[in-house]
């Protein structure tokens, strides 16, 4: 009985539809990641300032995303904004807003952490060698800060991709929704469909996230010096 189920994957254009759904997911992830990287770096640099007026609000912002689960954030933005402000937001836009805000918060923390972890004597040695501030940033500080940021950044990206699974809960048409549609349609003909469909979605996420994790680990090992 199990074997009969697997052919649901090859029936018609099911596989194709699943992949298209996956692309929808990845599109949200990609855009949020890009926004997060750009704004995250900027805000991360801003946050290295010792000024309490800057530190405290941003810290609260970060902690809000650390304490409240992302799914809850999705619900909050999805329900609260239309209910209170008479604006209609599509699920994709809600997803982009939440993921971007989350990504910016985490990314800024990564960048800030990388910058303040740089040993101070690097700056002093550079000055002693006669490097101009621009040269110091270009050849010493930025490469080192980048090395410390990139593995955690990739880790964050992987987490964001995994979290896109939650988008199905606010109605985004992504891979899980498509999968559920396929299961429903094929229920009579392929009773074990859900086993295989969820199985393949599981496998798809793995195929995306695993190479990223491995790549990040390789980088970490390479830069461990």
């Amino acid at each position, binding site marked *: 009985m199990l074997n009969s189920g697997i052919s649901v994957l090859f029936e018609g254009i099911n596989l194709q539809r699943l992949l298209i759904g996956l692309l929808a997911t990845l599109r949200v992830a990609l855009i949020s990641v890009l926004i997060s990287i750009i704004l995250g770096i900027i805000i991360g640099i801003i946050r290295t300032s010792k000024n309490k007026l800057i530190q405290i609000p941003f810290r609260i912002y970060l902690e809000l995303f650390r304490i409240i689960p992302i799914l809850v954030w999705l619900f*909050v933005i999805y329900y609260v904004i239309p209910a209170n402000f008479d604006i209609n937001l599509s699920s994709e836009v809600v997803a982009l807003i939440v993921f971007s805000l989350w990504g910016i918060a985490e990314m800024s923390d990564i960048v800030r952490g990388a910058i303040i972890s740089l040993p101070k004597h690097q700056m002093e040695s550079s000055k002693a060698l006669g490097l101009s501030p621009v040269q110091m940033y270009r050849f010493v500080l930025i490469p080192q800060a980048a090395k410390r940021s990139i593995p955690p950044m990739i880790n964050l990206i992987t987490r964001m991709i995994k979290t896109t*699974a939650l988008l199905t809960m606010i109605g985004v048409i992504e891979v899980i929704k498509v999968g559920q549609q396929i299961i429903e349609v094929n229920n009579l003909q392929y009773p074990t469909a859900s086993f295989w469909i969820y199985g393949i979605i599981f496998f798809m996420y793995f195929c995306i996230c695993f190479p990223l994790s491995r790549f990040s680990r390789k980088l970490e090992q390479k830069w461990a010096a």
Partner: protein
Amino acid sequence: MENLTFDWQYMIDVLPHYKTALWLTVKLAFIGIAFAIIVGLICSVIQYFKMRVLSNVVQVYLEIARNTPLLIQLFFLYYGLPKVGVTLSGELCGIIGLTFLGGSYMAEVFRSGMEAVTKSQIETGKAIGLSNLQLMRYVIIPQAFSYSIPGFSANCIFLLKETSVFSGIAILELTNTTKNLMGIFYKTNEALFMLVIGYLIILLPLTLFLTWLERRVRHAEFGN
């Protein structure tokens, strides 16, 4: 634009639902974390001692658990398994999911904690005649525990937040309860406000406890 004030009476009325949901969330999280710790300990010991075949099995498990979303794991357990004859309750699926996912995170934290115990500490232990088991018990585990606490705390909080994902498989924890109530009563502001408070009620004491634990066990960094 709707009135932004809260309907306090409504919030009092639905309080019992939230209490039940909160209790369920805490219960499932607690059990899930406990099992995750056990799985994590076993895996980390296997990896630390580089046990041949088992090490590879653990490695495969870790890669799978860490590179797939919890929601998919839950869907697979809750909707997929019944089709091959294994039917599990929603709550059991939730616990298995947390254990599966959490175990991998704990394994990573415990393993790096053990590896942080310096070689010279271990050699000193050997030099005074301790057996491997005694080394584990008196030298490695106490220090590994101290090194692991920050990561362990982060994992506990993470796993607790992940219980929100259980709403995808009809478990009446906090997030799901809120969603249902919003569907019935449309009091979105109130419901979501209580939801956030609900998580704070769980997370704040947990964070305090973990901070206390961290302070108590911080000896390892003062080794030499």
